[in-house]
């Protein structure tokens, strides 16, 4: 079986993480921003699994389970917040939500 060196996994997850970060910083749609955040979290999962496999240590894979649980909880709360916002003001664009400023 062909095994890839760990650098490949790490580079891939770093690239996904950066794509997610850029998405969060440039996009204006709250749902897309949230999807980019999920992308970041999943790239971390990839890193954790890669390290875990490389070192033969289970802790990383346990951590992935925790991260997935947390991401699911965050998704539930995040979408509820977007929904509450949409009920009051029919928009999901973060630059149109600006009642708070100094």
């Amino acid at each position, binding site marked *: 079986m062909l095994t890839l060196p760990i650098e490949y996994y*790490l580079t891939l997850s770093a690239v996904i*993480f950066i794509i*997610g*970060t850029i998405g*969060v910083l440039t996009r204006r749609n*709250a749902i897309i*921003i*949230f999807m980019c*955040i999920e992308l*970041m*979290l999943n*790239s*971390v999962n990839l*890193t*954790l699994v*890669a*390290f875990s496999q*490389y*070192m033969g*240590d289970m*802790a*990383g894979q*346990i*951590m992935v389970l*925790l*991260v997935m649980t*947390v991401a699911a*909880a*965050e998704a539930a*709360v*995040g979408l*509820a*917040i*977007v929904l*509450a*916002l949409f*009920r*009051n*003001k029919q928009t999901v664009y*973060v630059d149109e*939500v*600006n*009642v*708070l*400023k*100094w």
Partner: protein
Amino acid sequence: MTQTDLLAGLAIEIVSIFALIIMLTDALVERSTRLCETLSIVGLLGGLAASAYAHLTMPGQTAFNGMIVVGGMSTLYDAIFCGAGIMTVLLAREYLTRVGGMFDEFYTLLMMSIAGMMLMGHSADSMPMFVGLEVMSICFYVMAGLMRNKLSSNEAALKYFLLGAFASGFLLYGIALVYGSVGSTAYSAIAAKALSTQFPTLFWVGIGMMIIGLGFKVAAFPFHQWAPDVYHGAPTVVTGFMSTAGKAAAFSGFVGFIAPTMASGVPGLEKAKVILALLAVGSMLVGNITALAQTNVKRMLAYSSVAHAGYLMIGLAAGNAAGWTGITYYLVAYLFMQIGAFAVVGILERENGGNLTVDDYRGLARRRPGLALVMSLFMFSLTGIPPFAGFFGKYYLFNAAIQADLTWLAIVGVVSSVISVWFYLGLVVIMYFREPLGEMEGGEASISSRTALALSIIGTLLIGLIPQAIINIAAR
């Protein structure tokens, strides 16, 4: 999992179980607000008692395979979280009913977030730290948006959620990289293996990412932009709770992972200290200078909380034992004065954001002499005027910086404290020496709100008078 583990984690378990009981009570009992309130206070007192018990019987022990540590500083953190929770519960019903955000879920969320904070304060490993942080943060996102019919509250929740989740991504990536470079998530193992790691770059990138992630959570410059908006838009009792207990929890996580790293003597520590010092300087100056320009009291306190994060970062940058105890002491002091100040703001606030501007506070001393006096006391303490708690907090932190050969940092701290005199004491001057504009309504406080205020006053004075007692617990 043994009996000892269960006993060591008893404080967290009690608070979590009460959170679940309150959730069921809310679902099954009609008009359950008062019952939920009572249950919350009972649960938090139980948590306090269990934590004190753990401190006395097993200080410094670890449990759950080295995941959590009990006693010493973690007991003080528990006291901060439970104390903040009790005061918030006492203040909440009156305020939330007035502004139209009285949902009984508030008590469940509050207890859950406290359980998460306690897990953070006890953590001896990045895994429970991350889980605790997320439990706390997810509850905070909901609590910030509690007034679900108000656009400002929705906006606060949305901003907090997006930036908070973004920061969690950074923290998590940092944890993953550190895990990869040293082969463990336990803080003790991180410190022990940091010297022999094959990937020092990965290690420092990881630590840097963790600093960014936690920097967001404590609202330190340059990651503080969310704080003013969120603190402004959230219900005032929630703001008071988030800006004290939430900040304390994030700092407890910060100290937990950075203290062993600082003690390990890894090459590159000096640079990390300089970066932390720069974050501290930025937070202090930006927080205090921007607070000068605010006309809304809630927003002013929000910016000043960025500055207080800066003072606390001094302790991190110092990186010595005096720094850690200084941070803990300051967090206790900050808890009382900041929750007290927000309690006064909440008592005066009317629905739809009335009575929140500095102009509304003109001549308060004549109309509500009691509240004005109490507010002045908190302002003096926040400025750092002896003999109040805030003075000793700053004294210990600046002292830690001097011990770590960072005298310049202590000087910047003193200078920014002087800047903060302008707006803190400016508010006192406005309350005492300016003519009121028009009539002011409101300002009546219920007995439970008065109790919470009394607790903060006693705390602010008492901790200023006996600072050594707190330091002794923290150093154990």
